[in-house]
């Protein structure tokens, strides 16, 4: 299917299963660690989805948080205003996000590099301002408290313990799907666009179509994780679409190692954990945080993933 042999799919699935099993006992470490793990997973989906756009297709986005916010708002408003099940809401959130991905993807087809980056930045800001200004729909800048939790049948998904397992399952599925897409024919075609648009055109690749497709895939997953976030934290506000959020998602993708898909997972884990470890330093901690970003990027262009590879090569001699 799609150019992945069942063999490869199975082999990669095995690693995911292994990771899944290894991460099962984590909630025993307490609610704080569980909460962080859940946040890391939600960020992982978003950062990995951005990687499809940035790392695989070579399209820089500084507005990815907007899709995360659109997913969150869609699911929230559907479930609170129309009584739609949050599960359906999350899916609808992903779809609406990818619709907006289409809306952003088409006009930005001709744009490259910083032009694309700043346009997407503008899109993020516009979405944030619309969430604030269209208060008849979005309930305005104060945001929406009291979002219903995910219905879990016998499980109470307000508890972090049970939510962790739902999130672990969904994240595994989502990231595995992204992984499969990146290894599929579509993934290879996207990479060819990243490598050289003209060359891709000259061998018959419908470049505009695939660029838009990359936006749609990427934003769909961002929307999904936004919906999950909304029903987990149970409070959302327009600040979700702020530039700083987009930048932190992009940081995870790039610092983790773009174009690898496992890199963004590492980035999400590292940056989230780093922020927590630096907590005791209060207002001094961003000195360390900023300096670390500079150092990693200066010495390891392919991010933490590159660093880990470097280490493993050293170990093996």
């Amino acid at each position, binding site marked *: 299917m799609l150019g992945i042999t069942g063999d490869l799919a199975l082999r990669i699935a095995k690693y995911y299963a292994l990771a899944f099993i290894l991460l099962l006992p984590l909630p025993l470490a307490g609610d704080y660690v569980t909460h962080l793990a859940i946040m890391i997973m939600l960020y992982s989906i978003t950062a990995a989805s951005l990687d499809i756009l940035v790392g695989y297709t070579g399209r820089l986005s500084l507005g990815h948080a907007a899709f995360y916010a659109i997913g969150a708002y869609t699911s929230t408003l559907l479930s609170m205003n129309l009584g739609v099940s949050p599960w359906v809401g999350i899916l609808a959130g992903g779809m609406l996000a990818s619709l907006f991905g289409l809306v952003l993807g088409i006009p930005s087809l001709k744009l490259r590099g910083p032009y694309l980056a700043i346009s997407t930045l503008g899109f993020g800001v516009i979405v944030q301002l619309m969430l604030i200004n269209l208060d008849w729909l979005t309930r305005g800048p104060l945001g929406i408290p009291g979002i219903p939790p995910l219905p879990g049948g016998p499980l109470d998904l307000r508890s972090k313990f049970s939510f962790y397992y739902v999130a672990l399952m969904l994240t595994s599925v989502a990231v595995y799907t992204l992984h499969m897409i990146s290894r599929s024919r579509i993934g290879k075609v996207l990479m060819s666009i990243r490598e050289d648009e003209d060359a891709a055109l000259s061998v018959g690749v419908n470049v505009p179509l695939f660029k838009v497709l990359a936006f749609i895939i990427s934003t769909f997953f961002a929307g999904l994780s936004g919906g999950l976030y909304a029903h987990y934290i149970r409070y959302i506000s327009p600040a*979700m679409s702020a530039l700083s959020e987009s930048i932190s998602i992009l940081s995870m993708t790039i610092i983790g190692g773009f174009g690898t898909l496992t890199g963004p997972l590492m980035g999400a884990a590292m940056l989230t954990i780093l922020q927590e470890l630096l907590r005791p330093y209060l207002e001094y901690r961003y000195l360390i945080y900023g300096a670390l970003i500079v150092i990693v990027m200066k010495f390891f262009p392919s991010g933490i993933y590159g660093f880990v590879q470097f280490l493993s090569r050293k170990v093996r001699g």
Partner: protein
Amino acid sequence: MPVSRNLLIGLVAVIAIVVIAALLLTMRPIGPAGEETVKIGLIAPLTGSLAEHGLDMKQAAILAVEEINSKGGILGKKIELVIEDTACKADLATAAVQKMITQDNVYAVVGEYCSTVTLAVQPALMESKKLLLVPVSVATKITEQGYKYTARSCANQWMQTTQHADFIAEHLKPRTAAMLGVNDDYGREGLKIWGDRVKEKGVRIVAEEYFDPGTTDFTPQLSKIKAADPDIIFVVANIRDAANILKQAHEIGLYKQFSMLGGVTSEEFLQLAGDDALGLVHVSYFEPTSKRPVAQEFVQKFVQKWNRMPAMYSAGVWDAFMTLKYAVESAGTWDVDKVADAIRKVRFEGAQGTIYYNEKGQAQTKVLLVQVQKVDGKLRRVILYPESDKEGVYIPPERLWGS
């Protein structure tokens, strides 16, 4: 290199990171042995664009804890303060609060500045039965959701804005008004409440303008207001923006009566705005010049420790800690349900005045209305209202400006 080996390296690394971090993060700090303490958390924006207000909160919290501990703590237990930065971001704040709940096992959390952050952390705190004492966030909704463990020690948006609107309508008697607010929850709610209230009293709103957070130049908005020619201009903004708004209004020749909410009650505001603040009428729920002994003591201690005058946010934080102290002492137990009930019954003299709470946990603080006037050549806030605290009379700004 084979695909699967790279993947393996990646996944193993992720798991290693997570597990090592889990170990690091769950290690409990070793405290002084023997002495029993109760931990209280403070969440505030210590970094980011609102860090100046976080500083007000942090300094007051440290001072309050020192004060309580120097008098033997609460029910014999010393208080240990845990401070976390939120940068006014919901995700950082929820993680911080989760850490406080799980790792530090705090008894209560005091915070936050941003209403959006307070609302974000509220469910987690309520479900784990931790008290949330809100000293600054004014969004009315925070205490309207029926949470038993939430209490707010400052006047909320509704209280201060309606009382402000009533005062303006009754004493200044404008026929028309313009409104200018920051385009976020604070500004939007403020303008809505104020506008509706003064309209009931027959005041016509001739302009409603917004500016985005981070704006430094307000002349476009002010120019529109100037063209609408209102009798009074109501502004919802924090210190930095408010000072610029007054300066720039005068720059483009907009000399009108300005009025604002409580967010501008600080010495720094008067320094930043300078003489442009003359004539401004605004809400205050804390006056450092107040003659009341408790306020005097608070101001004196604050100045002694931090070498600056406390802002009203500092007073809110101080009173939040004092609420906890008096509530626990009157309940005679640390049992959180009993303390939550006790909060709704205590009545004490705080920095802001006499503090007591309603059923919803909203402090019924006194809202003061002040005007910035010159006393002995120095800018000072003069209390106009209520009668009991009155220090002077309202002077139309034209007379204060002289020419």
